């Protein structure tokens, strides 16, 4: 019997959908197993179609994106109520995503920056009509509702999503691995002793050799190994888009810890090497960091 599946997008770039569709013809292998009951990215369903389904009537619910609006919150709660297995799909859903970096500012500042002060704005006003309203800050979905399966990645590779779906369709567990991107990476490594950090556009990355050893911030050591090390394999530093392995509670803390050990530099030089450490160390998971949670709790108190 085909399993009923729903796919929802909260605030996101829809890249996770794109990655799934990149399966191309291989999609045909799983499609017969699935009865799609909601997937606005591809099929013309409306929100009330989802709202009208009985609770627990969806076998697998995939939620992409994080809650930047009150409507996102509503969708997330409905998906939770209707799904037997709720999957946080992609780094937005698991950790808050790139938009979580906005947690460095208050909502008021963000709205002013975007709607009043942006260089291209000609009619400055903060939109209010026909809108559900914004959330104060980004909270990762697993902290808002109970989530059964985590599948990070920005986006998860086509195969990651296929693997997860295949496991869930056959009632098998889908657990995250403890390994890192470095564990999957073919680059040749040496004893690390970094004297200088370079930006990616500075100098040239030598193929075949560990990118971190060459003084570029490659975050493979602190990042969960699910993507097959696809960036370092093509000479591009890992930006950590899949977030940390399950045992690591704070991506940035782990990165700082390792940098302290491998950098042979003056403290000042080291500090100056990373002008935007939050952006560099928490590309897709700032909302799930200690720092962001501290500020979030503060906001709660001020109100």
């Amino acid at each position, binding site marked *: 019997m085909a399993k009923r599946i729903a796919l929802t997008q909260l605030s996101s770039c829809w890249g996770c959908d794109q990655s799934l569709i990149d399966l191309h013809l291989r999609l045909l292998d799983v499609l017969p197993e699935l009865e799609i009951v909601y997937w606005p990215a591809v099929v013309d369903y409306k929100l009330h179609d989802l709202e009208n389904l009985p609770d627990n009537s969806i076998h697998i619910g995939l939620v992409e994106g994080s809650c930047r609006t009150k409507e996102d919150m509503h969708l997330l709660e409905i998906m939770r109520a209707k799904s037997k297995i709720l999957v946080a799909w992609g780094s937005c859903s698991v950790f808050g995503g790139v938009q979580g970096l906005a947690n460095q500012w208050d909502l008021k500042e963000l709205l002013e920056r975007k709607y009043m002060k942006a260089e291209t704005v000609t009619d400055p006003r903060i939109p209010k009509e026909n809108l559900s309203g914004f959330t104060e800050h980004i909270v990762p979905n697993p902290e808002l509702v109970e989530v059964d399966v985590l599948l990070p990645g920005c986006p998860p590779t086509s195969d990651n999503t296929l693997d997860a779906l295949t496991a869930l369709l056959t009632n098998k567990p889908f657990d995250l691995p403890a390994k890192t991107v470095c564990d999957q990476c073919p680059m040749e490594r040496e004893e690390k002793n970094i004297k200088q950090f370079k930006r990616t556009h500075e100098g040239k990355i030598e193929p075949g050799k560990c990118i971190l050893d060459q003084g570029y911030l490659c975050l493979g050591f602190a990042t969960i190994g699910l993507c097959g090390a696809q960036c370092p394999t093509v000479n591009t530093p890992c930006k950590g888009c899949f977030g940390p392995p399950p045992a690591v509670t704070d991506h940035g803390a782990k990165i700082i*810890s390792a940098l*302290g050990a491998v950098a042979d530099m003056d403290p000042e030089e080291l*500090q100056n090497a990373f002008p*935007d*450490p*939050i952006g560099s160390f928490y590309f897709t998971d700032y909302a799930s960091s*200690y*720092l962001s949670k501290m500020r979030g709790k*503060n906001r709660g108190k001020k109100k």
Partner: protein
Amino acid sequence: MTAATQKTVPSKSKKKRKGKFEPRIVAFCCNWCSYAGADLAGTSRMQMPPNARIIRINCTGRIDPLFILDALYQGADGVLISGCHPGDCHYTSGNLKMRGRFVLLKKLLEDAGIDPERIHLQWASAAEGDVFTKGVTAMVERIKKIGPNPLRKGD
């Protein structure tokens, strides 16, 4: 627990003294230097504000930045890290690794909107009970100026 730590951990007073802010400081002290220094301060009966909770660690190189973030998250008003002088680390360079981590962490705190002065790194040898004591006193003064950690839980 040695005499020194017992002296530095304040007895929990039940009375709530309103209006007066007494910072709570978590002090990570290296076993080979500052912890011994703190001990010396205790046995030589040096005066030290009772605000620091000392946690002994084998080397400052063993401090995961996570410990510091977690302490702040749990409501510590400040975190003091006290280790061997550069060149004197029992494990050669643990303190230098800590120093690298510390500067990065400070920048992170600043960017996240948390006063970076809430964390401080100092060097104090086993013989420098006075340096350690002064470090704690200065830390308490600094934190008094910044004010309580907004995440601080009830006294």
